[in-house]
């Protein structure tokens, strides 16, 4: 197990390096210039522009820029955002937490919806419930999330006026920054007002994002459950006259490993995939931060942001693999090149 973790951490380093190389290469081949974006339509002469280029090191050869980025990055210094004049780490921290909060909330939503749907669908395979469940799952997958998001806003915020549209907390509500996850911080400081506001602000984005994961979750879990349902040991359990609930519990325990892997991968794509949702709901998350940075060509911020996302993704997958290993003893032996 320890060796496994060591190897996987090595892999993380390699993957991160590859990612950083790809980002760097992509960025420097992309047309566009941060300096011209900095000044926009402002009347700034060539000399002043050149001075800024020099200051940002944009005229250095690309390998030198990469080397300097990497050598700073390993020391935890991701540079300073060209546009926001703040250290990249300062910008990424809260944004990452905002994205994590949204991700976790969406996962909870998706489990709350996906789990029952999957169980009912699997138990009553091919029944009307199963069909309805499948339809629901496909609905979630097929709906472009920005469309769903805007429709939810129109219904819940504009017409019913029950949920807020934008941001993470209401204006005027202040939550002390501890972890950066608002709901948690509010809970820790006993700030009930803040908690309530943060929760309300979470609902729409989390539901929008959660719908799509719920759909995938329901599908994967359903098919695992169906596979297991038909296996002999489940028949045996039934034959022994165990209650339905107990049987389902056994089935779930066996269906979880693949589902956990799936959720792990999902978290990764959630971290990046939440971009659209973050734009629609003005959620100040990492995805939006990076997208903004890309369109402005804020190199340090893009590189830092993507790197953080990649590391997080790899780590999340490492954790899910380990959890998978714990849940499924068969993995611990065998399948050695699999990880």
């Amino acid at each position, binding site marked *: 197990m320890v060796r496994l973790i060591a190897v996987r951490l090595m892999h993380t380093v390699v993957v991160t390096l590859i990612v950083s190389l790809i980002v760097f290469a992509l960025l420097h081949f992309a*047309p566009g210039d941060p300096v011209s974006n900095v000044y926009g339509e402002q009347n700034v002469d060539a000399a002043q522009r050149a001075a800024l280029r020099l200051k940002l090191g944009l005229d250095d050869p690309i390998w030198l820029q990469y080397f300097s980025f990497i050598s700073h990055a390993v020391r935890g210094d991701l540079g300073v955002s060209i546009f926001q004049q703040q250290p990249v780490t300062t910008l990424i921290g809260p944004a990452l937490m905002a994205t994590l909060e949204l991700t976790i909330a969406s996962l909870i939503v998706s489990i709350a919806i996906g789990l029952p749907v999957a169980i009912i669908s699997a138990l009553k395979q091919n029944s009307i419930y199963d069909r309805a469940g499948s339809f629901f799952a496909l609905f979630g997958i097929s709906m472009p999330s920005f469309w769903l998001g805007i429709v939810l806003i129109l219904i819940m915020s504009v017409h019913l006026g029950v949920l807020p549209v934008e941001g993470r907390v209401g204006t005027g509500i202040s939550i002390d920054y501890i972890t950066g996850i608002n709901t948690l911080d509010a809970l820790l400081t006993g700030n009930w007002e803040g908690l309530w506001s943060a929760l309300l602000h979470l609902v729409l984005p989390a539901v929008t994002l959660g719908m799509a994961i719920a759909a995938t979750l329901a599908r*994967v879990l359903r098919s695992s459950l169906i596979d297991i349902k038909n296996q002999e040991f489940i028949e045996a359990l039934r034959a022994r006259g165990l209650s339905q609930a107990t049987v389902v519990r056994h089935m779930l325990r066996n269906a979880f490993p693949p589902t956990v892997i799936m959720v792990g991968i999902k978290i990764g794509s959630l971290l990046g995939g939440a971009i659209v949702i973050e734009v629609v709901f003005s959620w100040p998350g990492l995805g939006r931060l990076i997208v903004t940075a890309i369109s402005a060509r804020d190199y340090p911020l893009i590189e830092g942001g993507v790197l953080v*996302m990649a590391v997080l993704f790899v780590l999340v997958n490492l954790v899910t693999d380990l959890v998978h290993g714990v849940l499924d003893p068969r993995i611990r032996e065998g399948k050695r*090149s*699999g990880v």
Partner: protein
Amino acid sequence: MKSMMKRLGTTWTRLGNAGGIAAVFCLLVVLVALLAPFLAPLDPDRQDLAARLLPPFSGDHIFGTDSLGRDILSRLIVGTRASLVVAFTAVAISLVIGVGIGLVSGYFGGKLDAVLMRFVDAFLAFPFLLLAITIIAILGPGTRNIIIALIVSEWVVYVRLVRGETLSLREREFIMSARMLGVSKPAIMIKHILPNIYGPILVVSTLELGIVIVTEASLSFLGLGGNASTATWGAMLADGRSHLSTAWWLATIPGLAIFLVVLAVNMLGDALRDYTDPRMKGYRRGGEMPATETAEPAPPMELPAVESAIR
């Protein structure tokens, strides 16, 4: 002819009603795409600024007009082709790349596999939309480049899937024996392993097809659509989104089109999964497969939904 009908009949039964309907619907959509120029009632690019945002059933405009006074129905029909071309091409090419690399990686294993897998991980770890945004920024807009962006992010899905299947298959007896009989490595991969993983590949491909269509819409949402002169569903949806409260049909009609197609494709994928998974129905596979392989039970399905629907 009669046997063909019969075969169709059996296929229908195996796919189930839902799968059958989905298959027919998909066929219809493909037909619409092929015949688009003949089906469109009006010129899809003809603007009439004085007749903007007409609601459905206004005069000639069954689905109304968009923000430039163009006929939505005609654009929807013509957009079918553009959207399907993007989706099919992207899925097909990434399938080929992914299957190739997956087979090699899974079959040879070892260092090659380790290196390839790190690259796959890197691409998986790279948030998809960001990859697409950067690629389109570099290559410039246009249908071709959108397809490239989609491929760059799609291929890993198939590598993962195929590699996993190959890993478990290569130790099977029938592969071992083929190897001992001196069958060449490429031949083993293509003739013996590949046919055994058709099922999962087919299923994942249909799922991915849906995902790709939705992704194209998301790209348009983020302002990375292609050529403004070509109608695609994604671009129509993205253009209409700010009018949702005042002219709902602009975004809702292409949204529904996307929804229905993705729904049909997914239902077809589900049905195919049931169809190709022998444990599901207890069907023996048809006679298409060589005897050596039918002797082996198909490997269990790897997880289809490795990639996200929320891009």
